[in-house]
C-alpha cells in the first residue's frame, strides 16, 4: 500500500534522532577515552596541579563517563554546548561564526557539483566516443585522483598569482563593509540587506575554494551520470519512443535523464556531506574561517566540547541530506515511493 509522504517523513525523523543519539554517545565516549588530559592541554605544562584539578572539576572530568554524558546531554537539550577550551568562548558562539561560512562554501561547491557533474555526464553520454567524451574521461580521472588541497594550490597559483582575476584568501576583501548578520552567510546577507557589493565580493572569494572542493564530486558524478545515461539509452523503451517519432532531444532530456539521475543523486549526496570534512585543508589554504578548520583545531587540542559539537553538526547534516536524497529518489523513482522504500 502506498504510504503518505508525511508518514514517511515522520518515520525518517524518528530514525534520525536515534542515529544522532548514537553518534553523540560514540563521539562523547571516544573523545574522552583518547589519551591526553584536556585540562592540562588547555592550561599548558607550567600551570600548577591545583589549577588543573580545578578545571577538571569544572569540566566534570572527575565524574564517571555516563554521568558526564548525562550532564552534557541535559545542557545540550537546553541548547548549551559548553565552552571551548581553545577559544575560551561558548561553543554556540563559535558555531554561530564558523558554521555559516562553511555552509556557504559547501552550498556553492554542491551547486557546482550538481550542475557540472550532470551536464558533463549528459553531454559525454550524448556524444560518447567523441573528443568530448575523451575530454571528460581525462577530467574525471584527474578529478578523482587529485586531492582537493592540490587543486586548491593549483587554482591559487593560476587564478590568483599568475593571472590574478580572483581573490586568494579570506571571505571578504579589505574595504568591503560586512553586511549586518542575518544568516551569517555573507552572500545571502548581502543580498537580503541590499549590499550587493559585499555579496558579489564574497561570491568571488568562494569560487576557488568551492571549485577545489567540488572537483572530486564533479568527476565522480559525471562518470556515474554518463554510465547510467548510456545504459538507459540502450533500453527498448528508448527505441520504442524513437520509433514512434519522439524527438531525440525529448528522449534524452526526459526519458533517459530521469532514470539516470537516480544513482547520481545518491552518490552526490554522499560527496556533498563528505565535503564538510574535506574542507579542512581547503579552508586552511584559502585562510577561510570555516567550521572544518575550527573542528580540526579542536581535535588537535583535545577541545572536548568543540569536538563533540562539530561532529554532531556533521552528523546532523548527514542525516538531513540523506532524508532529502531519499525523497528526491522517491520522486524520481515511483517504485521506491510505492513500496515505501523511503
Amino acid at each position, binding site marked *: 500500500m502506498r504510504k503518505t509522504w508525511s508518514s514517511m517523513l515522520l518515520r525518517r525523523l524518528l530514525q534520525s534522532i536515534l542515529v544522532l543519539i548514537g553518534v553523540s554517545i560514540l563521539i562523547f565516549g571516544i573523545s574522552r577515552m583518547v589519551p591526553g588530559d584536556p585540562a592540562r592541554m588547555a592550561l599548558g605544562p607550567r600551570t600548577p596541579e591545583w589549577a588543573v584539578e580545578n578545571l577538571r572539576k569544572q569540566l566534570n572530568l572527575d565524574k564517571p563517563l555516563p554521568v558526564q554524558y548525562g550532564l552534557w546531554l541535559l545542557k545540550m537539550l537546553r541548547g548549551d554546548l559548553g565552552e571551548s577550551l581553545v577559544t575560551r568562548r561558548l561553543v554556540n558562539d563559535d558555531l554561530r561564526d564558523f558554521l555559516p561560512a562553511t555552509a556557504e562554501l559547501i552550498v556553492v561547491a554542491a551547486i557546482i557539483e550538481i550542475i557540472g557533474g550532470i551536464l558533463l555526464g549528459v553531454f559525454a553520454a550524448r556524444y560518447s566516443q567523441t573528443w568530448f567524451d575523451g575530454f571528460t574521461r581525462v577530467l574525471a580521472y584527474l578529478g578523482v585522483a587529485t586531492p582537493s588541497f592540490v587543486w586548491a594550490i593549483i587554482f591559487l597559483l593560476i587564478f590568483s598569482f599568475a593571472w590574478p582575476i580572483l581573490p586568494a584568501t579570506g571571505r571578504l576583501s579589505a574595504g568591503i563593509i560586512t553586511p549586518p548578520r542575518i544568516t551569517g552567510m555573507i552572500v545571502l546577507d548581502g543580498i537580503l540587506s541590499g549590499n550587493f557589493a559585499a555579496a558579489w565580493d564574497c561570491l568571488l572569494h568562494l569560487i576557488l575554494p568551492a571549485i577545489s572542493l567540488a572537483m572530486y564530486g564533479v568527476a565522480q558524478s559525471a562518470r556515474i551520470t554518463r554510465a547510467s545515461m548510456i545504459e538507459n539509452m540502450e*533500453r527498448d523503451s528508448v527505441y520504442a519512443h524513437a520509433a*514512434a517519432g519522439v524527438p531525440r532531444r525529448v528522449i534524452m532530456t526526459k*526519458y533517459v535523464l530521469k532514470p539516470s539521475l537516480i544513482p547520481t543523486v545518491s552518490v552526490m549526496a554522499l560527496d556533498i556531506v563528505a565535503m564538510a570534512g574535506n574542507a579542512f585543508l581547503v579552508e586552511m589554504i584559502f585562510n577561510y574561517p570555516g567550521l572544518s578548520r575550527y573542528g580540526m583545531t579542536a581535535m588537535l587540542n583535545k577541545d572536548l566540547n568543540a569536538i563533540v559539537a562539530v561532529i554532531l553538526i556533521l552528523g546532523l547534516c548527514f542525516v538531513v541530506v540523506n532524508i532529502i536524497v531519499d525523497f528526491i529518489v522517491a520522486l524520481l523513482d*515511483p*517504485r521506491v515511493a510505492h513500496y515505501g522504500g523511503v
Partner: protein
Amino acid sequence: MANTILNVDGLHVGYRVYGGTLKVLDGIRLVMDAGEKIAVVGETGCGKTTTMKSIMGILPRQAVIRKGQINFKGRNLLTPGTEARGMRTIRPKGVSMVFQDPIAALNPVFTVGQQLSDVIKYSRGQTKQLSKQSVRDAAIEVLKLSALPDPERILTNYPFQLSGGMRQRVCIAMALSTAGDLLIADEPTTNLDVTIQDQVLRLIRNLVEEQGMSLALVTHSLGVARQMTDRIYIMYAGTMVEVAPTEGLFDKPFHPYTKGLLGSVPKLTGEGIGLGIPGRIPDYLKPPAGCRFYPRCEEALPECKDNKPELYDVGGGHRVACFLYR
C-alpha cells in the same frame, strides 16, 4: 494483393565490436504486400530483431548498414553515409513495433499516460498542434482498442503496477497509436505465460485485420507462425533460407534447416523431444564463406562451402536458398 509495401533487398548489417565487425545480416531479402501477414522464424541470434530494427531505423549505435535497400511504400529508407559508419536510415512513417519484453519496452519511471501522450503528440502532432484533451482521448481510445479495462486509471499507472499481459497490451496500444500500415511484432508473447500469449496473439491478429495493416511477426514458434500468418520466412544466421506460404511450408519443407527446425518442435502427444539440429550458429566475426548453414548441414554438397546459394523457386510461391533445389 500485388501491392508491395515493404521490400528489403540484399540487406547487410554488422555490429562493430572489439576485434572486428560481427557480420550478422548477410543479404536479407524480404517482401511484403499490403495487408499481408508474415512471420520471420529462426533461432535466437539469427538476426530477426536486427532486420526489424533496420526497417524501423532504430539500430543501436554499434550497428553498421553496409549494403542493401529498404523500400517502404516506394520510398528508399537508406541513404548513403560515410564508409565507416555505413548507410543512414530514414525513420519510416507508418511502421510501428511491439517489442519482445514489455518490461523493457516501457520506461519504468514515467506513467503510461505520460509515455502514451508523448508518442501520440509527436507521431501525429507534427502537422498540427494537438490539444491536451485530444491527446488524452486518443490515448484512451487506443487503450480501449487493446482491450484494456478502465483506461483512465491505466493512464495514471506506472508500468510496474500492471501485470505482464497488461503491459504488453499497453505496448500494443502504443504501437497502434502511431497508426501505421505495418505492424512489426518482435516476439510479442515470448515473455508471457501461455494463456496470456493466446489472448495477446488474438488481439494482435484482430487489430491488424480491423485496421487493415500488414503484420510482420517475429517468433521462435512455428506453431504461432502457422496460426497467425499467410507466409513464413525462415531465417538462419543472417540469411533467409526458405520462404513459403504458411501451409506450403508445413506440407513440404525443403531446406535442411527448416526440416530440422520442424523436427525440433516438442510434441504435445508425448513422443519425446525431437532430434534438433546439432551444432550452433556460426561465429559472426568469421562466418562461413558459402552457405552459412553448411557446417551444420547433413546434406551438404561440395559447392556449399564456398558459394552462397540464391533463393531458388520450387513452385507454389515457395523458394529455398539451397543448392539441392537448383
